C-alpha cells in the first residue's frame, strides 16, 4: 500500500533548517494497522502529513498504491485525499456551525455526484448522501445525534463524528493523529475500540499516531519516531 523510500522532510525557520523526518524507509501493507509513537517534536505528525499528502517531502519517494505523492499535482493530490484517505485529528476539527450530519456530509462534497445527489431519489452506487451520512453516524453509534451541533456533543461524541466523517467516503486509508489525545481514559478506550472494530470490519489500512502506549500496543506494528528516524518495536 505505502512504500516510503529515503524520505526526508525539513522545515526552514529563517536561516535555521529543522529536520523533522530523516531518510525514512517504511512499508505499510494494505489492511495493516500501524501505530506510530514517539516524543513530541520527533516527526510523528510530519510523517502522517506526508502519508496523507498534506505535505510534500524534501526528498525521497512516498508511494501510495504505486503513485508518488511527492510528484502528484495539487489537483490530483486533492482528488486522492477526497476519495482514498480519511483523517481523524486530536482536536476533532469539526465545523462548529454545522450539525453532526452536516459535518459528515462535508466529506462527501468534494466527491460531487459520485457521493449521491443529496436527495432521496438520487441514490447512487454508494447510496444518497443522506443515506451514507446516516449509515456512517449509525456505525459510530450516533444516529440519535445527527442534528446536534458539535458544541452540544461531548468530546468522545465529537471524535465519533470525526471518525464517521473520515469513513463516510469509504477510504482505503485512515490516518489518525492523536485521536484520543483530548479524551479521558474511558472515552479513549471506547474510541480505540471503535477504531479497531471499524478497521476489522472494513479492511482499512489504519495508521495511528499516539504517544500513549495503551493505544499503540493495540496495533499490529509499532513504529517509534526518534529525531526523525523510525525504528520498529
Amino acid at each position: 500500500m505505502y512504500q516510503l523510500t529515503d524520505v526526508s522532510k525539513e522545515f526552514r525557520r529563517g536561516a535555521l533548517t529543522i529536520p523533522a523526518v530523516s531518510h525514512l524507509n517504511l512499508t505499510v501493507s494494505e489492511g495493516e494497522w500501524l501505530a506510530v509513537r514517539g516524543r513530541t517534536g520527533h516527526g510523528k505528525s510530519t510523517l502522517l502529513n506526508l502519508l496523507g499528502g498534506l505535505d510534500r517531502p524534501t526528498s525521497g519517494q512516498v508511494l501510495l498504491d504505486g503513485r508518488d505523492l511527492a510528484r502528484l499535482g495539487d489537483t490530483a493530490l486533492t482528488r486522492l485525499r477526497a476519495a482514498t484517505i480519511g483523517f481523524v485529528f486530536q482536536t476533532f476539527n469539526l465545523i462548529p456551525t454545522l450539525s453532526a450530519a452536516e459535518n459528515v456530509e462535508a466529506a462527501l462534497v468534494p466527491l460531487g455526484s459520485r457521493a449521491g445527489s443529496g436527495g432521496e431519489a438520487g441514490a447512487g452506487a454508494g447510496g444518497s448522501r443522506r443515506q451514507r451520512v446516516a449509515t456512517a453516524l449509525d456505525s459510530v453509534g450516533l444516529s440519535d445525534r445527527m442534528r446536534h451541533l458539535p458544541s452540544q456533543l461531548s468530546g468522545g461524541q465529537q471524535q465519533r463524528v470525526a471518525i464517521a466523517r473520515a469513513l463516510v467516503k469509504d477510504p482505503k486509508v485512515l490516518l489518525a493523529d492523536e485521536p484520543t489525545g483530548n479524551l479521558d481514559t474511558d472515552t479513549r478506550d471506547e474510541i480505540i475500540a471503535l477504531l479497531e472494530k471499524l478497521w476489522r470490519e472494513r479492511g482499512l489500512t489504519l495508521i495511528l499516531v499516539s504517544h500513549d502506549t495503551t493505544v499503540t500496543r493495540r496495533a499490529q506494528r509499532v513504529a517509534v519516531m526518534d529525531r526523525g528516524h523510525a525504528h520498529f518495536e
Partner: protein
Amino acid sequence: MFFLTYLTRELRRRSRQAIFIALGLAVGVGLVITVTAASAGVRNAQAGVLKGLYGVGTDITVTGKPPAAPSNSGTSGSGSTGGGTRISLGIGPGGGQICTNGRCKSLKDGYTLDTLAPENNPPLSAASVAKVRGLHGVAAAAGGLLLTDNQVTISQNPSPPTSFTVDGTDLSQPKLGPLSNAALTKGRLFTAADATKDVALVDSGYATSNSLKVGKTMKIGGVTFTIVGLVTQPQGSNPADVYIPLARAQTVGTNGPQGKALKNQVNTIYVTAASASDISALQGAIAKALPSADVTSASSLASEVTGSLASTAKLANDLGKWLSFLVLIAAFALAVLLTMAAVARRVSEFGTLKAMGWRGRRIIAQVMGESAVVGLLGAAVGVGFGFAGAAIINAIAPKLTAILSVATGQRIATPSGVVNPTSSSTVSVPMVATVSATVIGVAVLLALAGGLLAGTFASWRISRLRPAAAIGKVG
C-alpha cells in the same frame, strides 16, 4: 444546497461581524448616494437656470459684441445708440421735444413715446445665422431678438417710464431659444402662420402684475399686438416678459429711438451642437467666423453663475465627492480587514476542508459567497441610507440663489480705461436631491465590489494555506 447551508450558518455565527461590515459598506454607499443625489439636484438646478436663460436645446449662444464707449458719455436725459447716434428728450411747458443728432421734433402733451430696441446686445446680420448654421458640427441654429420696450408719456405731471422685455422668436425653430422651455398656461402657442402677425405670448407672471389676458391687446413698439397665450418658464429662470414673432420684432423694433428698423437683424443666435463633445471646438469655430460677436457655451455661462447655488455645486463636487470617496475606501478597508481576521480565525477549518479533499476554489467560492451576501446586505441598507440622506437634504436644505451677471452692453470710459458694466439678477432656485435608478445600481455594485474585494483578499490568504500548516500541527 450544502453551499447555502454552510453559508447561512457561517453568517449567523459571525452575525455581529457581518452586520458591522455591512453597516460600514452601507454608510459608504449611503454617503455616495446622498452626495450623488445632492450633486444631481444642484446640477438640475444649474441646468434649470441655464435652460431658463437660453432654452432647452441650446448649447452655444452668440450675441453681438457691445460697441466701444465714446470717450465722453451722455448727460442725464440723453443717450446714444449703438451706432453712435446722439438722442436727447426734453419736456417743457407746451409738450416735449426729442432730438436725434441735433434734429428735433416736437411731441404733444399726452404723446407716448414707445420704443422697442435692443438694450444689451447690438444686432447681428441675419446672414450670421446662416453662416453659423453652415459650420461643421452645428445641428441647428436660430436667430432671436432680445429687445426692451420703453414707454414714456409726455406730460406736465410725468409718470415714471415703463419698460418690459420682448423676445423676438424664430417660429421656424420652435426647439431653440427661450420659448422652447416655456409651458403654456392659457390660450395657445405660436404657429407657423403667426410669423408675420401682430400676436404675442406673455409671461404669466408679467400678465398677472399688468392685468393682461388672452384676447386683450398691448402696445409693443407703438404697434398693437393681440395676446394669444400665456406661458410660464421654469422656476429659477429669467424669462422675457413678452414673446413676439421674430419677423415682427425685426419690423417693429428699431435701433434706438428714432433709429432704423432691425430688418434682417438678430442679436442672439441659439446654436445646438451635433455632438456634446464638439461644443468647445464649435465655440472656437463660431468665434472665428463671427469675430464681432460674443460666443458663450452653457459651461462657460455656468461659471458666471454665482451665489449659494454655485457654492453648493462646488461643495457637492469637491468636498462631497472626496468625503464619500474616503468613507467608501474606509468601508472597503474595514470589510477587508474584518474578513481577513475572520479567515485567520478559520484557518484550521479551511485546513481541515483541504485535508478532506475540498479544492481551494471550492473553499474560496464559499468565502466569496459569504462576502457577496454581506456586500448585498450593505447595499440594501446603504440604498436606504441614501434615500434617507436625500430626504434629509430636501427637508433641511435652504432655497438656493443664483446670481446671473449680464452685460449691459455699455462701455464707459474711465480714467483707468474702458469698463463693461454688468447688471446682475438674483433668482431663487429650488434644489431637489434625486436618487436615480442608475445611482442605485452603481451603489449596489459598489457595495458588492466592497464585499467581493474583502472576499478576494481572504481568498488570496486561503489559496496560500498549506493544509498541513493550517491544521496546525507540525510534529
